[in-house]
């Protein structure tokens, strides 16, 4: 793979994470527990959609065959999507989506930090912009984890369950594939082992402060980074791509 194609694949994978998570959060519109949370959730999904657009646009530029952000979002089949399984998981209840955000965002923040130091200017610039947004998201989601973990008995029980259920999707974040390895070798990309250690420390701190228990080591699901998704993903994509697939070539 040429360096450009490598970068295109890497940027589009980052775009996939952002878009799929943004799309999940959009499903929560008009369903938040309180009006103020409605506004926060919309802000965060807008941030993620914005990041997806930047990553896809950059991927298209590196690839050099004229694909734009919408070609990436709406005209690729399921197996070409390379997002983490974690971000495609259904929203569930508020505790489930809170835990999903905390687990993903604590990883993503470190990843973006590492990417600001990579040798590719295009990606490091996008990372520098995204990092400010994600730092704030993580502050918000962590605060909620504290409230739910250390709130009522019911909220404690529910959110512990969320944590236990979603834990198996965290392993994938730290297992490097060829793309990660090449990214690291050629562009001084993120070192996933170092990030894992940082992530574990951060997550442990917040989980303990929330009076929750770190889940036991367990079997880890994987496949998202290779385009093998959970069953939920096909529906997300079918819904999102509906108009573009029904009316090919139309402008909206």
């Amino acid at each position, binding site marked *: 793979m040429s360096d450009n194609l490598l970068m295109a694949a890497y940027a589009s994978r980052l775009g996939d994470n952002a878009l799929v998570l943004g799309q999940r959060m959009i499903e929560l519109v008009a369903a938040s527990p*309180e009006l*103020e*949370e409605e*506004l926060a959730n919309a802000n965060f999904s807008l941030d993620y959609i914005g990041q997806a657009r930047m990553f896809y646009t950059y991927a298209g530029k590196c690839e050099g065959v004229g694909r734009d952000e919408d070609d990436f979002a709406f005209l690729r089949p399921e197996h070409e999507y390379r997002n983490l399984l974690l971000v495609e998981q259904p929203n569930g209840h508020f505790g489930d989506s809170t835990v999903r955000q905390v687990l993903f965002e604590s990883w993503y923040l470190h990843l973006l930090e590492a990417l600001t130091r990579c040798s590719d200017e295009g990606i490091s610039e996008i990372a520098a912009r995204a990092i400010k947004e994600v730092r704030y998201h993580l502050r918000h989601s962590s*605060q909620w984890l504290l409230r739910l973990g250390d709130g009522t008995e019911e909220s404690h029980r529910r959110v512990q369950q969320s944590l236990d259920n979603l834990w198996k999707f965290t392993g994938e974040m730290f297992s490097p594939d060829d793309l990660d390895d090449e990214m690291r070798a050629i562009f001084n990309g993120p070192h996933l082992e170092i990030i894992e250690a940082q992530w574990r420390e951060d997550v442990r701190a917040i989980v303990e402060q929330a009076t929750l228990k770190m889940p036991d080591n367990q079997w880890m699901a994987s496949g998202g980074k290779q385009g093998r998704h959970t069953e939920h993903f096909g529906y997300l994509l079918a819904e999102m791509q509906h108009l573009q697939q029904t009316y090919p070539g139309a402008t909206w």
Partner: protein
Amino acid sequence: MKQEWPLYEVFIRSRSGLSHRHAGSVHAADDEMALTNARDTYTRRKEGVSIWVVRSDKIVASDPEESSAFFEPAEDKIYRHPTFYEIPDEVENL
């Protein structure tokens, strides 16, 4: 019915050099949440560089019923204003 989250008043400094100004209010369970709710509600269009939030029930306010006693005595103190003083036009820098 369960208790609703308390109300907070939100004050925003739109850019440095200006005072904070009342923007509106939000409900929040605690101070930290009030701050982030205010940020997510009132600064979506880059309206601010600094936010204050304060519990609405902590604000001490004057009573409109007493407004004449409070504010009208200032009305006849016109000598506090520079236009009260007559200075010939020839005199500059004053």
